[in-house]
Structures are given as C-alpha cells and as structure tokens.
C-alpha cells in the first residue's frame, strides 16, 4: 500500500495509536514482575535514597566545618588550651606593638642626647671672632664677666 501525501498525517497518527497500544501491553508486563525482582528494586531504591541522605549530611558537615574555621567558633576547641592557643596571635601582636613603641622612644631619647652632647662639647669656631655681632656680644658686660672682674 502506497501512502499519498495527503494521508501522511493519518499515517503518523496510526503509528502513534499502534505504539500506544503496544506500550499499554508493556505496562501490564511491568506490573507483573516477580516478587524477587520487586524486592531488589525496592532495596536499590532505599539504598539510593540513603546515599542521597548521606551526601546531604556530608555537604552540611563540610559547610559547618568551613563556617567554624572562619568564625573560630567555640566548637572547634572547647578546652582551655585551645582557647589559649587561639589568643596567641593577638598576644603576639600586642607584645610586638609594645616593643616597637619602646624602641621608638629609646631612639628619640638617644637622638636628643646626641644633640645636647654636641652642643655642649663643641668648641667655638675661629670664624666666630670675625663676626662683628659676636665681637659686640663679647664686649657687652655680662653678669659672669662682671663677677670675674
């Protein structure tokens, strides 16, 4: 039998109808599976659902661990040692700042002392006697000069 172009749609429809009737038969076949097979399928299903549950739990645990690591939550180390260890970085930071502050103070004091020492120990340069202002200063009567006389 040859199909004309006008009956092409009907042909496809007929194929569909035949296929639907066939799979209806197959549905009956699927409903008549042996008990052993049904049990195996049920066990497989239960196992798959359980694996999904364990996957969800693992995911939740990993998120929780990540969170407690970031937040340094008390769960991570409930013992005194763990708490002390968690404060070590902060303690080191404070000690470091104190050390830097002390060092800076020492350096400033040393610089000031050096300047004072230089001023006190430095001799009068010879050029100073050519300076008229300095000569005038020398000629002025000072309390020390008066006392000496």
């Amino acid at each position: 039998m040859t199909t004309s172009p006008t009956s092409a749609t009907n042909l496809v429809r007929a194929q569909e109808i035949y296929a639907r009737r066939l799979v209806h038969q197959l549905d009956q076949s699927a409903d008549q599976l042996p008990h052993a097979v049904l049990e195996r399928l049920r066990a497989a299903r239960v196992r798959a659902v359980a694996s999904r549950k364990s996957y969800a739990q693992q995911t939740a645990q990993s998120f929780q661990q990540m969170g407690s690591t970031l937040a340094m939550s008390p769960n991570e180390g409930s013992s005194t040692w763990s708490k002390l260890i968690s404060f070590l970085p902060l303690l080191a930071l404070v000690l470091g700042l104190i050390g830097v502050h002390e060092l800076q103070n020492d350096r400033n004091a040393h610089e000031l002392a050096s300047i004072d020492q230089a001023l006190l120990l430095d001799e009068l340069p010879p050029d100073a006697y050519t300076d008229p202002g300095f000569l005038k200063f020398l000629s002025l009567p000072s309390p020390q000069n008066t006392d000496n006389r």
Partner: protein
Amino acid sequence: MASELELADFLKGVEKRAFKRSLYHVRDEEAALDIVQDSMMKLAEHYADKPAGELPMLFQRILSNTTLDWFRRQKTKNALFSNFNDFEASDSGEDMDFLEFSSHTPDTQMSESAENTVSQAQNLQEIEQELKKLPARQREAFLLRYWEELDVSETAAAMGCSEGSVKTHCSRAVHALMTALKARGIHI
C-alpha cells in the same frame, strides 16, 4: 532541590519500567537489576541538588548511559554488533498497512476477559520478544518516546541525537513491530 521523599517517590514510580527497559536491551535479569541500581545511585549521589522536575529526564539519560557502559564492558563482538551497529533497516514498505490497521482494529480490543487472559499473556511474551529483536537505537527511541512518554525533543536529548533521527527510529520501530506481530497473527 528534590527532597528525600520526592526522590523516593520518583524512583518508586519509574523503577519497574526502568528494569524492563534495561532488560529489553541487555536480556539478562541480573545485569538489568544492576544497571537500574547503578542508575539510581548515580542520580541520588550526583544530582541530589537538582529540582524534582528535572529528575525524569536526568534518570532516563543516566539509565541510557549506564546501559551503554554495560555493553562497553562486555567487549564481545556479539553484544556490540547485535545491539549497536544494526541500523540498516529497510525503508521499503515503511508505510504499508498502518491505515488499514487503524481502520479495522476495534477500540475495545484491550478489554480483558476470562477467555483471553492466557492468550494475552502469550501475546505479551511475543511482543517482548519482537521488541528485543529491534535494533538498539530503534528500541531505545520507541521506549523513551512511547513508554516513558517523552516528547520528540526530550527523547532526542536523552539519546544524544537529532529530533529527525528520533522520528525515523520510532517510525521504523513501530513498522518493524507491526510487521513481525502481524506475521505471528497478533493484532493489537
């Protein structure tokens, strides 16, 4: 994300057909059960975060791939040649007597009676035998399209082929089944 209950209900709804579908391909009950179990595990382990609406398509795809993997593992010429390389179905007589069939088959034929229960069981066996004889791609397209009730585009996505190929495979499958069953005197 599909809940545990949604996943369980979904698997319960598809497990029988999945087993039969796999059995038609591999023709080994133990292997078919293993394939279905592997497919369920893969779905649960790798796609647990997907919404429930995506599960049917994902599962069909996984089942197809797991079945394909089973064939690959067999590494026997017979398995490969008889199930994957026989796409040379003839086009001649493709449109033979579908119209004749559709105009003569009564709608009440599916109704059961005490007299024909045995013959229906026999018919069912013969239908399954003919289904197993189909080339793998035709059988896969037929089962996905009509038994799993996927549309053409979904079937194409599940099989990894074009929609045109799905239509061709389905048409050839139905034609081959009808020819074979008619030769056996079975009218659906």
